[in-house]
């Protein structure tokens, strides 16, 4: 309650404080977002936008020229997300669990070093890994050779069956720092009394982690999962930097972001198509919205939050 709220006068200063942020945010983010959703119901016919209802969506889902690419991109994107959930988050939790153990020396040095890939741009990460995995340069084969596994080497980024998984793992390499930090923070915020009580009851080591700490950090794991979901279904840069807009080989690494870019902007012989671009963006919007709502209304409600 503020003093000025008791006065009946118009409080202009509230408007002045809010106006710049709300105006820029509305004009550059919210209106274009809805503008894009709206454009997906129109199609350019003879340089004029004509309302076509859900026709664009039907084209995207069922027209053989579009649907194959769309379902391919959606499937790849789902795989991209699954790899992140299965690899990135468990590694992040493992590292955080180790880092948060008491009396560990050099913990902050490890933390700082492991977080470095996260701050690098996708161009560096995508291209750097492309060079390292390149059979021409031979860094990867010579390392595998050193541990006696040279026969495992393959041009991973160039083979259709491996390329997407390889890129997902590169992305995992880049972003493992985020779940690590968030879980680390959650683990540190567990009060000592709870840990001591567990130790008095003889719950230590591994079973202490599974039975005491893990239930307490579940809300953080929930947040990380939804952040990963949003970031993955909105990804573009890494694939574009490593494989180009065509998301080769033979579209094996095409995800919704690269598909949207090619459709909207055009590439090589393909002409850019704003209304189909909006349609893909709208689908991405609905997927992300569904994921966020699923988290907010189903996951978050079920997870008990503990107040310390």
């Amino acid at each position, binding site marked *: *309650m*503020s003093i000025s*709220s008791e006065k009946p006068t118009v409080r202009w200063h*509230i408007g002045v*404080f*809010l106006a*710049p942020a709300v105006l*820029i*945010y509305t004009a*550059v983010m*919210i209106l*274009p*977002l*809805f*503008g*894009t959703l709206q*454009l997906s119901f129109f199609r350019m016919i003879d340089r004029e936008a004509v309302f076509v209802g859900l026709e664009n969506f039907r084209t995207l889902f069922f027209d053989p020229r579009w649907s194959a690419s769309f379902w391919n991109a959606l499937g790849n994107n789902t795989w991209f997300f699954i790899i992140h959930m299965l690899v990135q988050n468990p*590694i992040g939790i*493992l590292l955080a669990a*180790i880092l*948060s153990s008491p*009396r*560990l020396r*050099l913990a902050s040095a*490890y933390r700082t*070093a*492991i977080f*470095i*890939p996260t*701050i*690098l*741009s*996708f*161009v*560096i990460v995508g*291209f*750097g890994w492309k*060079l*390292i995995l390149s059979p021409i*340069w*031979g860094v990867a084969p010579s*390392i595998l050779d050193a541990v006696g596994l040279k026969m495992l080497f393959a041009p991973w980024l160039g083979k259709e069956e491996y390329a997407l998984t390889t890129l997902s793992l590169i992305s995992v390499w880049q972003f493992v720092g985020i779940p690590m*930090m968030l879980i*680390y*923070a*959650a683990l*540190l915020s567990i009060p000592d009394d709870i840990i001591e009580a567990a130790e008095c009851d003889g719950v230590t*080591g*591994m079973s*202490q982690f599974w039975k005491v700490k893990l239930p307490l950090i579940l809300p953080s794991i929930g947040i990380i999962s939804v952040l990963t979901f*949003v970031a993955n279904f909105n990804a573009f840069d890494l694939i574009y930097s490593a494989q180009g807009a065509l998301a080769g080989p033979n579209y094996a690494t095409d995800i919704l972001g690269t598909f*949207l870019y090619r459709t*909207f902007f055009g590439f090589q012989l393909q002409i850019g198509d*704003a209304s189909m*671009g909006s349609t893909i*963006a*709208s689908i991405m919007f609905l997927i*992300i*919205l569904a994921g*966020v709502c699923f988290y907010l209304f189903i996951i978050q409600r079920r997870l008990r939050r503990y107040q310390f």
Partner: protein
Amino acid sequence: MSIATHSPVRSIAAHAILIAYTAIALFPVLVIVVNSFKTRNAIFRSPLSLPDAETFSLIGYQTVWAQGDFILYFQNSLVVTVASLALVLLFGAMAAFALSEYRFRGNTLMGLYLALGIMIPIRLGTVAILQLMVASGLVNTLTALILVYTAQGLPLAVFILSEFMQQVSKDLKDAGRIDGLSEYHIFFRLVLPLVRPAMATVAVFTMIPIWNDLWFPLILAPAEETKTVTLGAQVFIGQFVTNWNAVLSALSLAILPVLVLYVIFSRQLIRGITAGAVK
């Protein structure tokens, strides 16, 4: 998994895992930077060794210097990042102050409206953003990028800053009001200096995605004179794809500024993440 350090075996195991993962995290970066200082032959013959007197070479950097306009790209990135950052911090703090300080009709609704952008990525509106920029003649200007990044950074800034502003002592503000300070004075003179640590955290969070973004420079400002470092490096690498010296040097040059910033701000960043996550 929670490896207690009572027993030396566990402690060694913990360090072994951490050292192994640190090596995985740093190795690719080191390989790129180290090889950028070697001759072409040495890059291929012994990619894993350090450069010595014989194999040391700056030819890659010379190519980058001669062929790419990296000073200009760097300048563009700096202008875009600093300007967006200043706008996000100023406007974000103002809005956060309004939301956390005053009760008015629609306060919660406004908070939710501004928070929407934390989860929904601005990229999804790209088609209409491009139309907007074309209509207002801002394509291929840095202004377009600054506006987009300001809008992108505001939601999280407002969210974090209003959490912190709620903690500013109420007595202090009321004392200011009794002394006859205007609401603007209270905000700029009393509250803003007190939330400076939170502003630093928001600054680091906002800065990294802006500096690293490829999508909007590619779509809104791909012209030679408005390229950012990220886009410039991408295009340069695309053109010099077979010149390994140049590519490795360009990558190293792109790594360095971010790395320096990270080393300066890493404490702030890590403290920010850990403070925010405890909530």
